[in-house]
């Protein structure tokens, strides 16, 4: 690990001024991803700004029924919070399906948003990776790419976004609040992460001097009937092959509201708008669910190691939506 300067910020302004003065600085929250990356020599910040003392660890109800989550709220705390469990079970479940208990106790909401891909070549500094070293090439395209994406890929990068939490946030239309010395702005989660295109090293809309301060989740009645399903190689502590966040509201046998997002298959947390479009006002049947999944996955590009994910994602979407129906085909 390269030596670095360490600053523990006592307040938000200090943190923002420090980061705007230092072009190669990183904020340190739980450190569960950043420190690993520093040890692997993938991240080499000159300055690490510890933000864990900042007052950003509150979960608060918003007027109108939404919830505001501070960027430093620990993943395990958020998953266990009564407001989240009641109103957004999909979010609670998604978080609990990620990492391990120890990691969730440390990891923060802001850090989870910014965690980096698990593509094996990204982690191996001896291999070319456009995300790590722009222009170097992509070792995964013709190499092992079982854990890479099938949606949103480019010729430069196939890396999947690894987060579970973000998949649920995408389905819930959450927004990210970010601050810098220049002011405050809000970015929809679905715009926060970027597609790789020709610049896979630019992973989010966040400017280098901006700090994630909160995530706001708007009210959504359908979210009370929501689920997260994660398909993975082992029962815990594994990244998703495919995951699905879904919320469903059915009225008179027809879909009134459907929210869907996919994990493990997208280069970013994948909001399945095409599937939602097909589901809108469709009969709440397995055939419709299947058709919706197929519509979303029509654009998927599979490669030898990961093509199975397309079929698996379709099966998972259908299975999750089916589970959200009561035995009489309605929703609670």
């Amino acid at each position: 690990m390269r030596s670095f300067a360490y600053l523990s910020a006592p307040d938000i302004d200090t943190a923002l001024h420090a980061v705007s003065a230092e072009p190669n600085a990183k904020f340190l929250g739980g450190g569960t991803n950043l420190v690993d990356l520093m040890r692997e020599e993938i991240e080499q910040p000159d300055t690490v700004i510890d933000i864990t003392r900042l007052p950003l660890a509150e979960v608060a109800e918003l007027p109108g029924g939404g919830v505001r989550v501070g960027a430093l709220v620990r993943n395990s705390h958020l998953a266990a919070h009564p407001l989240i469990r009641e109103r957004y079970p999909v979010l609670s479940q998604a978080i609990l399906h990620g990492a391990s208990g120890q990691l969730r106790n440390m990891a923060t909401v802001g850090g989870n948003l910014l965690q980096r891909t698990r593509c094996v070549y990204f982690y191996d500094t001896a291999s070319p990776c456009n995300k790590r070293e722009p222009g170097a090439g992509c070792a995964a395209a013709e190499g092992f790419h079982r854990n890479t994406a099938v949606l949103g890929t480019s010729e430069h990068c196939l890396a999947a976004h690894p987060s579970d939490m973000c998949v649920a946030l995408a389905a819930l239309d959450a927004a990210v609040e970010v601050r810098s010395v220049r002011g405050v702005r809000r970015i929809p989660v679905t715009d926060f992460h970027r597609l790789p295109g020709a610049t896979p090293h630019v992973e989010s809309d966040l400017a280098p001097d901006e700090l994630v301060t909160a995530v706001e989740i708007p009210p959504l009645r359908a979210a009370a009937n929501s689920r997260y399903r994660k398909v993975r190689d082992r029962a815990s502590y594994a990244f998703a092959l495919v995951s699905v966040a879904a919320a469903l509201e059915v009225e008179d046998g027809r879909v009134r509201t459907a929210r869907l997002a996919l994990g493990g298959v997208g280069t970013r947390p994948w909001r399945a708008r095409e599937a939602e479009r097909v589901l809108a006002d469709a009969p709440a049947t397995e055939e419709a669910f299947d058709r919706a999944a197929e519509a979303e996955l029509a654009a998927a590009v599979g490669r030898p190691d990961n093509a199975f994910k397309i079929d698996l994602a379709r099966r998972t979407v259908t299975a999750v939506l089916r589970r959200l129906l009561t035995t009489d085909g309605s929703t609670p």
Partner: protein
Amino acid sequence: MTSTAAASVVGQPVSRVDGPLKVAGGATYAAEFDPGPGLCHGAIVTSTVASGRIASIDTAAAEAAPGVVAVLTHRNAPVLPYHEHKGLTDPPEGERIHLLQDDRVRHQGQPVALAVAETLEEAVYAASLVRVSYRPESAVTAFSDAVAHAVPPGPRYRDRGLEGDGGRGDADAALGAAPVRIEAEYVMPRLNHNPIEPHGTVARWSEGELTLWDKTQWVDNVRAEMAAVFGLPPDRVRVVSPFVGGAFGSGLRPWANVTLAAMASRHVDRPVKVVLTRRQMFGITGYRPRSTHRVALGADRDGQLLAIRHEGVSETSTYETYAEEQLGSSEYLYACRDVATRYRVAPRNVQTPNDMRGPGKVTGVHALECAMDELAAALDMDPVELRLRNDTIVDQSTGVPFSSRSLRECYQAAGERFGWSRRNPRPGAMRDERGRLVGYGCASATWPAMRQAAEARARLLPDGSAVVSSSSSDMGPGTYTSMTQVAAETLGLPLERVRFELGDTRMPTAPVHGGSWTMASLGSAVQAACAEARRRALAEIGRADADLAAVLRQIGEPVEATVRTEPGDELRRYSAHSFGAVFAEVAVDPDLCTVRVPRLVGAYGVGRVVNPKTARSQITGGMVMGMGMALTERTEVDPRDARPVNSSLADYLVPVNADVGELDAVFVDEEDPHVNPLGVKGLGEIGTVGVAAAICNAVYHATGRRVRELPVTVERVLGAAVR
């Protein structure tokens, strides 16, 4: 703790005597030893090509980095004698890599430099600044290319009894004539050693004498190899390794960390510590080699085996030949007149594989037992019944009787506990309460009972206690505990008055801690040394029936005996193996094809069980390894450049607690009067054997799908195109 009646100590479920030390953090592991002032840290720089020469190596930036003491490369490293040394655990063919002795690169991950600095962080950073360029040379990087040039293991393996070609009768003719035949290919990926303690060494030179605190299963071999490498008399090298944080075979050979620590320590004239990173564990230590097996079975309509043809090929390196006894079990496990085996090794530009728990057997039995299940399906016969119908009391590969064999009893005991009779034979016919497809599968397990020469010392003290020692290791099976039991029982002293010590070359010589032979070998020596010491003490006062503790107090000074024991000809008169039967239940999601294993039940005939508690732990731990092999573990080696790509514990998936359901292991009563004085056959490795086959067979029963390539991942059950 109450005093345990001495005479009944062997066979009791005694808790680990070293347990309190371990849970309280009092057990000192290799990299935790304090060698005294001046300790510095070494970080290894590894190669990024599979084959070639180092064209240039620039260490200027590394040398200028803060805290750096030295940067060693082939250009400035001391020239070492590297005298020939072949321990029992070294491949007999080929030669180990001579570290930093020349510009040649033979595999990805080979050490090409060592940065030595005041702190670990400084060393790691300096290592990252070393710039190496290579002149790559042609390399065999893909397993499939290596297989095309596979060869027999070689003459030195032949001398050890591993020919490559074996069997009896005419298998091809018998297969041709058999009314029922199956033939299938099974693929088993490379599996990496991932003990939680990575390999690490602290080296210190003092007046020409080298002390190494190392993680190893065999201190005496580390001493012998380092004596050869550095051209020292063995008595100038001391190796200390009292605790091992898991090894499973990874501690059978000294890896680069040992030589590099010793080399650097001499170079900078300070103690040096070198610990492998997790990534380096995938490029420097050995592993269970990738292999492909083809099995053909022929039987009559009653299920009597008429022919077995079993061919296997596994990867090895280009500079050493690592070969395993993969096919031997196909020659002795069942009665069958016509058997042919053919084993080849495929040299590839990778580091040399090495033994991993149940080496050879885990691989070969997997293929054979999956094939047996396919044969049972072809015969429309119960898979247990098929095995029992081919049971034998004679080892047909040698013609001598088994010293003991309880395969039938194991199937009965495990099958009953498992509830095999509830199995609906039709695939896909069983469901659990959650609607998941349920499958039941079984497989046989076997591991040879071997024994080596061993030496132990018993020292009886005037206070009525005893210290017994030998240079063995305890990588986890409970050697401290079981040897204490044998000693206490033999001496007639309470357990808590006996201390067993191990892991130091200054102690009497133990064989390598592996092969499931420690109890048979060292246990016999401990028993003999304790018996002799007791005899001497009692002889001193001329009474054979006195209380030993009272006698020792009366003598007033220590009484000592060091005894070496070795096997006789019993293993030529008998074929000695542990046998077992393992049953697996799987639950498969019908939509998503994820496989879970709610239950594994095994029964084993292993001779006498010295400690049922640690023995059960051994077996259930082995079962979990087998579960990993079945469902999650594989080292992905990039066929373009032979580089392992998933070299971390986040990407190389070993089972976690949530994967492990109910584990049940029992031992059938078995008395083996032939195998060794203690009547033990060994149980360290058999727990892993057969587990993956039982799980694959259960997956077939649940789904009707044969997954013949491990691990059984979602896509393989889905039936999608996979590599």
